[in-house]
């Protein structure tokens, strides 16, 4: 059986959407191969350094944790802004030597650790692994090297330091059209000439399992709310500290007589159309499915993501979406014809009301979205085959 080592700094629930994708990739490939995970752990808020290397079992995966350098978010934000404003000819100046470490993830001993696992393939997941294609060069020369950069439409992807992730590997997997465009933006310098054989670019159709019988059950206490919309204001990761957003009241009033179920990090609640009665909802993926399956529509207020998982789940469950223009979620809505998108808040209300007011429009979007999502993102066998082909060739 082939052995694959997945290297990432985004292992675990605290990394939000990209953490979930890393786990889905490992899960997909574990059906056919033996999978080891090397987790580049950046120091937590306490800044207390732990042991250099630690091995633990996480579900079916054996995870080797190794201490790595933390990212510098402020510096990365400045670089992102500069890259967004400047043209391509300014990239070398913006991406100076001092920005090499801005992504974090660099750690000593990783190469030796990976080599000791004797992999047939190394799969690099996330932009923090940008330095590994060069570092691994001779140590695992027999192994296939593949990457899933998870950079979405981030301007940081244009940094020359990140180019090994696209040009220094045997294959690159992208999870959205926006990411594919970003990766192939400068084909003559990014894809190809860095290795003896050209880098293969693959689009991965990330597949999800949605528990439909569980989703079809109406959540206890929801019958009193009649019609409701799901409002996404944060990634549903259950992280504490989030509160009900001002958008909750605003959307509730602007869309007319309809209840609002807000999903904001760790604060999930449903309020009735008068917004006086509020019922808390325990954050969990099955509860999100239950909300999505019975909602009139799913309204997404979040900025750009990497995959738009909640949009895909909503489409799979037959609920139309209203999403921000220019995001990955917009890509899904447009490709599937299963939802509408907006460029400002007035358009958001117009699109939401159009769906709420027209049962025919809602039913049509629902059918089209569900068919597309089931065909494109409901086939786990195909996803597993794609990841296996990316990793093993």
């Amino acid at each position, binding site marked *: 059986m082939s052995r694959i080592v997945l290297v990432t700094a985004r292992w675990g629930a605290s990394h939000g959407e990209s953490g979930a994708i890393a786990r889905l990739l490992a899960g997909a490939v574990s059906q056919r191969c033996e999978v080891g995970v090397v987790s580049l752990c950046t120091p937590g808020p306490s800044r207390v350094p732990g042991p250099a290397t630690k091995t633990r079992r996480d579900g079916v995966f054996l995870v080797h944790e190794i201490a790595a350098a933390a990212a510098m978010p402020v510096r990365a934000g400045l670089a992102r802004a500069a890259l967004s404003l400047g043209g391509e000819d300014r990239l070398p100046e913006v991406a100076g030597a001092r920005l090499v470490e801005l992504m974090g993830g660099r750690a000593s001993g990783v190469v030796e650790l990976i080599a000791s696992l004797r992999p047939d393939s190394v799969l690099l997941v996330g932009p923090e692994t940008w330095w590994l294609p060069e570092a691994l060069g001779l140590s695992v020369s027999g192994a296939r090297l593949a990457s899933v950069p998870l950079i979405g439409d981030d301007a940081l992807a244009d940094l020359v330091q990140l180019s090994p992730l696209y040009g220094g590997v045997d294959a690159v997997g992208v999870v959205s059209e926006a990411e594919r465009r970003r990766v192939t933006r400068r084909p003559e310098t990014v894809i190809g000439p860095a290795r003896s054989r050209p880098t293969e670019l693959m689009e991965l159709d990330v597949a999800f399992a949605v528990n439909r019988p569980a989703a079809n059950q109406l959540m206890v206490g929801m019958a009193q709310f009649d019609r409701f919309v799901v409002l996404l204001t944060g990634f549903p990761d259950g992280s504490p500290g989030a509160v009900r957003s001002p958008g909750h009241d605003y959307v509730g009033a*602007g869309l007319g007589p309809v209840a609002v179920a807000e999903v904001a990090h760790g604060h999930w609640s449903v309020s009735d159309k*008068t917004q006086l009665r509020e019922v808390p909802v325990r954050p969990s993926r099955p509860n999100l499915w239950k909300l999505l399956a019975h909602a009139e529509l799913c309204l997404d207020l979040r900025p750009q993501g990497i995959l738009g998982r909640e949009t895909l789940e909503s489409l799979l469950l037959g609920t139309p979406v209203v999403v921000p223009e220019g995001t990955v979620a917009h890509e899904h809505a447009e490709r599937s*014809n299963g*939802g509408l998108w907006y460029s400002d808040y007035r358009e958001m209300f*117009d699109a939401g009301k159009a769906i709420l007011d027209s049962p025919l*429009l809602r039913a*049509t979007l629902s059918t*089209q979205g569900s068919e597309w999502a089931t065909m494109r993102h409901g086939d786990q066998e195909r996803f597993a085959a794609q990841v296996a082909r990316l990793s093993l060739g």
Partner: protein
Amino acid sequence: MEHLPLDARNVLEALRTASRQASGEGPRTWIPSTSFDALLEEADVSPVALNDHLTWLHANCELAQALAPPEGSGAKAWCKRLIHRAVLAVLAPYLVKVQDCIAVSVRAIDTVARRVDEQAATQLRALGAMRSDLIDFAAHLEERPEE
């Protein structure tokens, strides 16, 4: 389904065309609170949602018609239209903003009124439950055999 396939881009284009015809930046849609708890029908004080001033505001807060050019014929009407055009050329953004502010204020007042009515209904319900409990308790005391 007969109506398939439907192109979401066409739906969006139709919405955007309709939106371009509307002026101002404020929310275009708002449903005034016309309903209130049935309990308030019997309350001593009428619901705020039925307040005459609020009703008048809802009926008159749309000022788009007030900015229409003056009608009529003749030199005087022509002069008025000329002045109207000149004034709007300078003040149109300001006047549209004022319209939006008025509309949003009316909606904010409406929201407050709705919440006041809800609170009043909740209070009435609580008072009713307490009165019912007291009546039951009094009946229980009356029925209790004398010691």
